[in-house]
């Protein structure tokens, strides 16, 4: 009895703390009479969300497309490079410093240039997302491909396995959990990348919506957009985790 009730408390703890924080926010906004254009109460944000639902959904869809598109493109681009770097010492020496240098460039600073180069379509946003996602996936994949225990390599060598066989039967499965770690980091970055590029130049997307609603003192709408972005980010993270659990179904 005691055990089950303590488990119930344990399970309810997380939603409870959110509710308490929201209630405190509502109460403080109400008693301190904070103007809604500076810090709206949760109830005002909710009202704005309902009122502007069509815009939020439409702009949310744009941002989701850019995020997922850029994320997937980053996977497609980084995987072959990771394999090349892990297999070929020369490729590693040539490519790694370049990629490391590129990674050190702040992506936010590059965003205006990317817009300049790629124009006002969805492409510049996707490019920024790719830039942000590319490196975490690459680095983790390279590390994964090289994280093979020596004993397992000895086993494959003792069987006279070809490099291709070692790659397929050993390196790839060992690398998979690392790959997903990179993906989980990257997908969170991806949302940030999309919003930043929308800040720079866009006619739609949640970043754009935040920008214009703040400019027009529609602060509750800006907060609603931020809330939606947060939910989007959480959903994408859990989506990757869901796929990971399906693919990596072993404990090392």
């Amino acid at each position: 009895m005691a055990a089950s009730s303590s488990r119930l408390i344990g399970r309810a703890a997380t939603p409870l703390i959110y509710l308490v924080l929201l209630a405190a926010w509502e109460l403080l906004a109400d008693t301190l009479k904070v103007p809604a254009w500076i810090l709206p109460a949760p109830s005002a944000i909710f009202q704005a969300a309902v009122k502007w639902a069509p815009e939020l959904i439409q702009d949310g869809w744009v941002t989701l497309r850019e995020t997922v598109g850029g994320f997937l493109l980053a996977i497609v681009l980084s995987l072959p490079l990771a394999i090349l770097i892990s297999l070929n010492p020369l490729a590693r020496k040539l490519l790694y410093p370049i990629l490391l240098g590129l990674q050190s460039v702040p992506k936010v600073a590059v965003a205006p240039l990317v817009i300049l180069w790629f124009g006002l379509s969805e492409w510049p946003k996707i490019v920024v997302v790719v830039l942000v996602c590319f490196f975490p996936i690459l680095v983790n994949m390279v590390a994964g491909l090289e994280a093979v225990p020596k004993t397992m390599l000895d086993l494959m060598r003792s069987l006279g396995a070809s490099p291709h066989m070692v790659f397929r039967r050993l390196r790839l499965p060992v690398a998979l959990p690392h790959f997903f770690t990179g993906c989980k980091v990257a997908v969170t970055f991806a949302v940030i990348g999309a919003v930043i590029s929308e800040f720079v130049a866009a006619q739609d997307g949640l970043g754009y919506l935040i920008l214009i609603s703040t400019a027009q003192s529609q602060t509750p709408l800006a907060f609603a957009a931020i809330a939606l972005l947060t939910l989007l980010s959480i959903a994408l993270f859990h989506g990757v985790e869901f796929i990971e659990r399906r693919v990596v179904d072993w404990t090392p």
Partner: protein
Amino acid sequence: MIAAAYPGSAPPRSSAAVVAAIDLKGVTKTYAGRDGGSVHALGPVDLRIEPGSFVSVVGPSGCGKSTLLRLVAGLELPNEGVMQRYGTALDGPSHEVGIVFQEHVLFPWITVLENVLLPADVLALPKAISRERAMRLLEMTGLKDFAHLRPQMLSGGMKQRAAFCRAMLSDPRLLLLDEPFGALDALTREELSLELSRLWQELGRTALLITHDIEEAILLGDRVLIMSERPGTIRTDIAVDLPRPRNADTVKLPRFQEIKHQVRDIIFNRAQA
């Protein structure tokens, strides 16, 4: 009898020619040290293993006995000396050799059966025959009901049995055992070494066992080779004239105890070799 499972595979013991399974002459191994110096790990070693025999190697830890096994396996090349395997130069790994490592080295992402079948995939052996043979090996080692589970569901002893099945899958002429029971508890170790003794007799293959357990070395071996401290050389070669099949009662025989004391005395320098 499960020998000669594949067409053209190793002939059974009886028809083996006089050529040695393993023949090492003046073999040494030196490793490059971290500080630019070098570590003389092994040798010079002369070693001849007759086909069909079971040879145990015992020695203090760090004496280079694992290095010896890695050389025989073709995983490493010697600095000096000549190595031959069944009459041809030993210069790399061979499908004629099966290895059981100290750790089970089972892949956690595939089932026990798929692990046992790994050599068949790598060596491109016929699928149906390999699968049938894998199931028979798993049955012999009492793992049939666990074939479709992941290795992490198995106990330490069961994992090592699965590793043995994998080593035997390609029907190797030579079985190399690198402290295969070293990571197991004492009870499981005794149980498994008796089981290995039985299987070895049934399968009829040449075997080289590296171990630090004197009883295990005597119980399994036709010969016990005692190695010196690093750089490891073979100090003494003792013939184990105990009857086969050997079982749990073998260790109680006076002759077993006699050999055991002899080996201990040599290892701990209480007698002249």
